[in-house]
């Protein structure tokens, strides 16, 4: 049985003349890990805030757990755990106090919260920092604490806005591991990200957004299959040469993208293409053979790089 926890139809959000979200439709199933992939300003965060009942839509239908977040805000928020993009931990309090008071905001009893704190600290790997003021935590620790905090109320849906932005690689991997555990436990996750590796790792299904609209929808594998080839060959001829070499490259592959620093050749067998190119007397300065990624999907859909 796959019940839809979230259903959205024709959702539009305008700030004055600016259209942040432009008539999007999607749904999220229970225990699904659902991603919003897109560059900054694509409308991901706005969409998340509307789902989290902290923003009003301009038009369209939104149903979260069968109810309208605009009318039943507090009731819907009681079902959600929210991990905002900008940290909003209580800087005057310690780690434990942050978890405790957040539970109190939901009206939970002190006894109930105290019984959960040890588990939450363990989950966030912050047992040794329990009485530390949050100001003294590293970026990764803060992010883990915010996630632990969002779990204090036993939410049905966890909303994560750019969960690993600004973290170093090691801290990201620790965080991904934590999120995987939640996914395994059947938590429904909503994740916005502009990192394709994050989306590939964490999301069962995702929508690619740009300028307020949905460009495509599907699982990472589906999206790649649909919008890209199996492999990619990246070649560099030097910054001045790339554009000049592009026409000569076109005949070797299905599709070509010329970026300022390199040329991407889309093909089913990149090794073979490279051999052909070299065989034809071209000598790229460097070359790289790799699998297609969501980055390529995004490039295909929008004609732009995801991270600029």
């Amino acid at each position, binding site marked *: 049985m796959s019940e839809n926890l979230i259903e959205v139809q024709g959702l539009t959000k305008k700030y004055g003349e600016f259209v942040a979200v432009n008539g999007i439709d999607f749904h999220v199933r229970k225990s699904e890990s659902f991603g919003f992939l897109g560059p900054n300003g694509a409308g991901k965060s706005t969409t998340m*805030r509307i789902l989290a009942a*902290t923003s009003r839509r301009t038009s369209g239908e939104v149903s979260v757990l069968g109810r309208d977040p605009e009318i039943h805000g507090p*009731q819907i*928020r*009681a079902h959600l755990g929210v991990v905002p993009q900008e940290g909003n931990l*209580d*800087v005057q309090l310690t780690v434990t106090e942050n978890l405790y*008071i957040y539970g109190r905001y939901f009206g939970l009893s002190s006894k109930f919260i105290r019984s959960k704190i040890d588990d939450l600290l363990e989950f966030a790997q912050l047992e040794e920092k329990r009485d530390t003021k949050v100001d003294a935590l590293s970026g990764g620790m803060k992010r883990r604490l915010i996630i632990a905090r969002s779990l204090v109320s036993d939410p*049905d849906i966890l909303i994560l806005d750019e969960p690993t932005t600004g973290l170093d690689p090691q801290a990201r991997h620790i965080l991904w591991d934590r999120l995987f555990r939640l996914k395994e436990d059947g938590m429904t996750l909503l994740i916005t990200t502009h990192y394709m590796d994050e989306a590939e790792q964490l999301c069962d299904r995702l929508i690619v957004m740009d300028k307020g609209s949905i460009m495509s929808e599907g699982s990472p594998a589906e999206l790649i299959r649909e919008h890209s080839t199996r492999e990619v060959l990246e070649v560099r001829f030097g910054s001045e040469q790339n554009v000049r070499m592009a026409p000569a490259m076109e005949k070797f592959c299905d599709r070509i993208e010329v970026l300022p620093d390199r040329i991407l050749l889309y093909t089913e067998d990149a090794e073979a293409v490279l051999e052909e190119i070299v065989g034809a007397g071209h000598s790229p300065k460097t070359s790289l053979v790799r699998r297609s990624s969501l980055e390529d999907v995004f490039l295909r859909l929008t004609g732009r790089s995801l991270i600029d």
Partner: protein
Amino acid sequence: MLLSAAVAIAERREGKFGDRYYAGRSRAVLERSFIAFKSSTWFVVLSGFVEPVLYLFSFGYGVGRFIGNIDAGSGKMVSYAAFIAPALLATSAMNGAVYDSTWNVFFKMNQSRLYHGMLATSLGPLDVALGEIAWALMRGLIYAIGFMAVVAPMGLIPSWWGVLAIPAAVLIAFGFASVGMAITSYFTRFQQMGAINIALLPMFLFSGSFYPLTVFPGWIQAIIKALPLSQAIQLIRALTLGVMQVGLLVHVLYFLVMITFGLFITTRRLDALFMR
């Protein structure tokens, strides 16, 4: 789906009047202030009532020597210290409430984004406003008690009605805090807070703290009497000097209106700011 405790609690309020704005849980916001207070520097927070006491010593006794007894209205002659003591209590209630509802609120709204976190839970904006103001009032209450504990033994509170000055100070603080928070919610930059200081200074200096309003021409008196600090001083002075009359209820009403108005605007603004 099994309901979590948080959901069950939120559902209980469903359908009640104003459930979008108020979850009936401003206690949790108040509790947060208390936890933060426990780890702050106690004596700094508690020493808040020192300032009016210093003013009282300096003016009441220092300047008072050159002034003698004065007419506190309706021909009642009192010492200069007894004249200014209630005004200082009213002023400190105002200052404390304004400080808490402007600087502190601004910081939590814009720098630490504390309210963003609160409003992502099942709390509503009115819970946040009431909880924050309640904390300011508890501080105000402690300051008022501290101040009274110093001045009453000095014989500066000649009437037993003076006990009512303590709840009156809290009422006054409530009024200023509600309006202060409403105004702060419109500010986007720290510097704008300077405007509040500019507005408060003349009120502090001309509201009849240090001399009877009768030194001014009649029309100026009328304007000053309508200002909130002057209302506060009239109320508290009447109580400490025991000049009881029905007209005092007008001052009480004045502050009740301020409270309602301030809370209304604050709730709407918080809702608009965080529900963009």
